[in-house]
């Protein structure tokens, strides 16, 4: 089926995710689209960023050529310092994650299931993978947002009744933000609810790109970014 309208760019997905952040939230951003969210935090919202590399309150990415090998994020990118940072080791960094001290994490996804299961770490075809901190974030963060393209490069739906890829965490995702829709995972495994669609898309066209069944919110709207 041909797309009804253009899909949103990765920046716009990040922009929409960033609207979920509340003032004062502790936020952990995964690699990929989530990293972009920090560029789109709404005015008046002050966040405390957490990184598995052992850092609270990091500044933005550092300009190329000004990297400090002792100031990196979990993806190995150089950061710049800001006032009010704190450094700690990996045991403490993950105590924070596992202990429920992260308000929101945004993670990339290979698949999300109808009950909020997340698969984002293992491509069976490779036969070996990196789990990194993904399972800890999935299990520990108060709120997990999946930030992802709605379909794979070959068009395969990534929002599915049940994940076929190995899981990162069970029932952990509470919101899915894609390049065509925003979907809530209903509590208690009650399924998925479409709450927003990209401009030019509608409930039927989003459903046609989605293998899992979507309940349509009575308040369904177009994605707004303001």
């Amino acid at each position, binding site marked *: 089926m041909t797309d009804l309208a253009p899909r949103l760019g990765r920046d716009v997905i990040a922009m929409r995710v960033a609207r979920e952040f509340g003032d004062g939230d502790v936020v952990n951003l995964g690699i990929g689209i989530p990293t972009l969210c920090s560029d789109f935090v709404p005015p008046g919202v002050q966040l405390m960023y957490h990184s598995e590399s052992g850092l609270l309150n990091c500044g933005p990415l550092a300009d190329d050529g000004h990297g400090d090998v002792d100031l990196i994020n979990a993806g190995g990118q150089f950061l710049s310092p800001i006032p009010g940072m704190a450094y700690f080791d*990996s045991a403490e960094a993950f105590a924070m994650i596992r202990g429920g001290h992260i308000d929101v994490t945004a993670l990339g996804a290979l698949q999300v299931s109808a009950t909020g299961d997340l698969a984002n770490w293992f491509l069976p075809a490779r036969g070996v993978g*990196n789990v*990194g901190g993904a399972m800890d974030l999935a299990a520990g963060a108060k709120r997990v947002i999946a930030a992802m393209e709605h379909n794979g490069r070959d068009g395969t739906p990534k929002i599915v009744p049940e994940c076929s890829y190995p899981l990162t965490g069970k029932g952990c995702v509470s919101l899915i933000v894609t390049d065509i829709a925003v979907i809530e995972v209903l509590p208690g495994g009650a399924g998925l609810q479409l709450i927003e669609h990209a401009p030019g898309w509608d409930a039927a066209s989003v459903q046609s790109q989605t293998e899992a069944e979507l309940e349509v919110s009575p308040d369904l709207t177009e994605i707004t970014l303001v």
Partner: protein
Amino acid sequence: MPIDKTVNSFTEAVSDISDGAVLMIGGFGGAGGMPHLLMLALRDQGARNLTIIGNTAGIAAPTGFGWPDGVEPIDHAVLIENGQIAKVIASFPVSGSVSRPNAFEKGFRAGEIELELVPQGTLAERMRAAGAGIAAFYTPTAAGTMLADGKESRVFGGKEHVLEHALYADFALVRARTADMVGNLAYTGTSRTFNPPMAMAAKVTIAEVDEIVEPGGIDPERVDTPGIYVQRIVARPPASGGGMVLP
């Protein structure tokens, strides 16, 4: 004699690591916080059939991940390529790119190296548990995933938890900015990562540092790894100090 844990050379520092030893190697993956010169000394020393435990098993070169442009990474690959490694316990063992496999991935595919994959937080916590005398603990991480296969699990507060066991090592090779002679260590920035829990978990912790100072040279409020966890310290040559990557 005042306590002085200084060892005079990297060669001497790793001389008693025997074939079959279990080693933790500090750092996160990038250039910061990794014991480069201890790894090179261990390569030259030649112990074989080693198990190495760490966040990564080496990053593929050429790379980013905190390595300055144009610098050839020194990491676990120097040991893997030298045929010294039988098993890896890590959370991020392969490179980010399928098309640029690291030395570990090649060895793994060839059936030469065994892998135990552990979530990053569970890995750090298992090390801390070993150092803290906690034999095992229940964590929600990985519950319901393939990394919990075959493990005991139990529900606490309505949430499934997996029983994970302490992870011990014969030696930890760690990297810090400064050591005092009694073995207290201070790190810089995000270079802490796995170094402190590894120092706790190993029978013998060997710290590669930029600088060794007299006792009192590190503010007691600022010690990150107390000297109780550190058996040997060895200083990088002056030219490699101050955050530089290479000797």
